[in-house]
């Protein structure tokens, strides 16, 4: 309808607008008696009972949809961006994070900080990692930029805290090892995740083996 309307305005050739009709609106009452009649009419229309009946019906049927928050929670979409998670490698259960610092760099609210060091196994180890959730705007850039699919968003959306400034550290975000062993680590499907048909888009590097 809207586009049609536009068309007509643009062409300006049809003097009478087709497909339009006037809504039948009663004139507002002007005198006292007319106003009284309108009040009585509106009050005794019985619509109240329609609503009351729905409630009563559902109450009798015991089909209650109320979610008992915080005891119960709504399921969250897989792409929802709430408090971050650090994933583990599927093959070895070790941490995916390689300490590249891209999340720290890309973070537009500047709330990620990390310390890295050369560890005993000659690898780059993340010795400290923190996100200031008070500052985080949950934009998802960190998850998008992560080359290892290590940092992702999770579904934990409760952010109430006693201070505006509150932090989450690496250990809290990391998938607990028992969950990992049980195979319940969920892959994130939002920003930064692997899209379908990824294989077809990759040019293969020849191998001499």
């Amino acid at each position, binding site marked *: 309808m809207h586009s049609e309307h536009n068309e007509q305005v643009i062409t300006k050739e049809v003097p009478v607008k087709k497909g339009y009709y006037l809504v039948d609106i009663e004139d507002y009452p002007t005198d006292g008696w007319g106003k009284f009649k309108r009040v009585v009419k509106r009050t005794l229309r019985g619509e109240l009972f329609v609503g009351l009946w729905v409630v009563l019906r559902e109450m009798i049927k015991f089909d209650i949809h109320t979610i008992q928050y915080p005891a119960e929670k709504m399921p969250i979409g897989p792409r929802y961006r709430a408090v971050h998670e650090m994933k583990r490698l599927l093959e070895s259960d070790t941490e995916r994070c*390689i300490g*590249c610092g891209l999340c720290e760099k890309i973070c537009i609210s500047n709330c990620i900080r*990390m310390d890295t060091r*050369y560890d005993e196994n000659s690898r780059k*180890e993340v010795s400290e990692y923190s996100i200031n959730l008070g500052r985080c705007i949950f934009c998802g850039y960190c998850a998008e930029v992560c*080359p290892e699919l290590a940092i992702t968003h999770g579904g934990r959306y409760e952010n109430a805290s006693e201070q505006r400034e509150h932090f989450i550290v690496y250990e809290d975000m990391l998938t607990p090892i028992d969950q990992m062993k049980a195979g319940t680590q969920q892959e994130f499907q939002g920003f930064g995740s692997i899209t379908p048909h990824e294989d077809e888009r990759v*040019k293969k590097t*020849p191998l001499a*083996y």
Partner: protein
Amino acid sequence: MNEITINIDGKEVKTQEGEYILNAARANNIFIPAICYLTRCSPTLACRICLVEADGKQVYACNAKAKEGMQITTTTPTIATERRAIMEVYDVNHPLQCGVCDQSGECELQNYTLEMGVDSQSYAIKDVAREAKDWGHIHYDPGLCIVCERCVTVCKDMIGDNSLKTVARGSDAIDAEYKESMPKDAYSMWNKLNKSIIGLTSGEEMLDCTSCGECAAVCPVGALVDTGFMYTSNAWELKQIPATCGHCSAGCQISYDVKHTSIENPEEKIYRVMNEWNYVSLCGAGRYGFDYQNKVAAKDAAAFAKALEAFKKADTIAFTSTITNEEAYLLQAMKEKFGYKLVNKEAKAFQTFLQNYSEISGTKLYGSDLKKVHEANFVISVGAALKSDNPNARYALNNSMTVNKGAGIYFHPVSDPVIEGMGKSLISVNHAPLKEEAVLYLILDLFADKTKLPSSVVSYLASFHSEKTITVEETIKEKVVEKVLVKKLNEETGVEEEVEEEKSTMVSKKVSKEVQVDVNRLLEIVGADDKFMEALEKNLAKKESFALMVGPDLYTHPHAKNLARLVALIEKYSAFDLVMIPSLTNTLGVALICELDDAKGSYTIGYNTKGDFTVSALGDGDLDMPAINQQEGTLTSINKRVNPTNAAIGYNGYELNDIANALGFDAKHVIEYTQKLPLAAGFKAEKFDDLPNRYENDGTEVRGYVLQNVSVATNGNEEVAAFEEKALEGSLIYLANPVRQFNEFTAKATLLKEKAGLYMSEAFLSTSDFKEGDSVRVKNDNGELTLQIVSDNKISGAIAILPTFDSKINSEALFSSYRFATASIQKV
């Protein structure tokens, strides 16, 4: 050198004849990709990516010299194909670890891969195991290495350690099919790359070099990394603060790379020091000795009040030359206002030396700088333990040897394997201490224009010469003519007959000959061996630019005045350009700005040195001061340049300027004095904030300003006294620091862990009763010290070395002023 005009990509470019095309292009902001080339070093020809077309022929821009009217195209379709193939080859089996690599995006492999648009790989080869190696202060990951050999080149051509070389990789041969299918240059580059990897020349497990870290700095990828920096920070997190190194008189341009300390601690910390390695090379102290700041929590008002009292009471300020020009100016201003005596022995010696030099030269300062030494092809060094007194002077000497095919003579009593390792064309003469005058007379004798030298000097020099008849055996070739009977066919008669013919053969013959030879007793006095003159003559062939470096041994010599005059004569009457190596960071600045006194008064304020009241940036004084990496100001370098430096990290305490302000001076910041530095000494009235600190693309140093070499009136007297043939009897000790240490500030740096003690050469230790770690008493008339013996393989010979960098060892106590002394060394 003539100026010529060449044409690069349609742009007229002026350059010098014989300049490499790559350098000419870079100087004119024309981009030619190049990986393996290092400015100031010889072309390596490893990457071959700088391929260009010159007059229709493909050449490598890094080693093809520009000729007048040359037409150069930087890219043609063939060259583009070559370059892409080369980058693909570099990417073969390169680990996809960019996320953890310490190069963190400052990667030339990444840059050129993107520049050449490599989006797919066409080549493959089976990889070989390449395990990461810990070489001590350097970490090498051969997996990331692209074998551009920049590390090898810089170590050989600039540093002179020759510690790195290419070793066999041990991989399969490249698939034969590629020889046909691949672009030619890419194939031959791959062929070379596939055979080699970087290894240590010594064949040992650990690097044993002068630890400058230049190899890691020049590495285009993350293969060579400073172990101390490894995995601590990404490059993009670091804020770069342009500065001037505060450790020695070279005044190298550096940048302090700073970042917050950790998540918990937002305080700034220096993570590393970087340099423009194409134009300046750092030493280990400059690169690793960066955290010498004086950490002060807050202003200590009580100590400050005491300091003010002390300043009111004092009649002397004793200080070291590790201060900025502005502070030196303040000290001088305080002297003028309050009549303090300014005492700084080392700067005073240099100042006096300069004054004595000026009396003949007619200029306040020596005429040349280290850049000239880099460009020279015959260099002499006298009176400096080069590698520790001024590493940059050592690099300049080595650079001249390797890149300019130069030669030189290193005169020093302590024999130095590092210097000797620079090549056969460098003659090391280990003269006895106190023979520096003879050395300078010898240089005059060998190189000065005798027609212009003062006649008294000429006749003095002649007095060392005598004629001697010696018998020499010579091998000469003689032509021996023999008459032989040959059977020949007579063509007329057809009969074979015997004909006598002359046949000559060359026969070697030994002949003894009596020859008159000139004997120069100066050679004997300085201890030059018999072959010296012969070797020198050979080395002097095709040499046209000469440089002389003189060092701190001369300034404190008992006959420093004579030495200064001799040095001036050499500069005036020979082809040598002269550089003097100031003994400490800002000795030259202090010598030019301050009027120094000889003796202390009754109450001394010590600045960075012990006094009755001590203000110190070392953190051990009565009042704290900022160290050079916490200050803004200027430092005067060996190159007579006034270089600006900036504060890398914060300082919360009081500084000299606060004391001065409390005593009646008025400057918000100490850098307000930069423009007031004395014009009469050659400084310029330039504001600190206007001083640049950078290098241009063509290598031009745009840093601060160069001091004006002010003329000094001379009285025409150019006589120099004769020298006495005195010698130091007994076992010798020498006052010098090990490589990477200069003073108490470098001693504070956490990455520099040189052990202080009595340094003895490995060779000497093996022949003596002493062992490494022995406690010994070093005793002479001046005093005695108990020290531990440290074995040092960077020196040879019998002279033991005492360091000054460790404040716990008061080495100076054993020396009157000259850097050599005799002492008895006994085990405790």
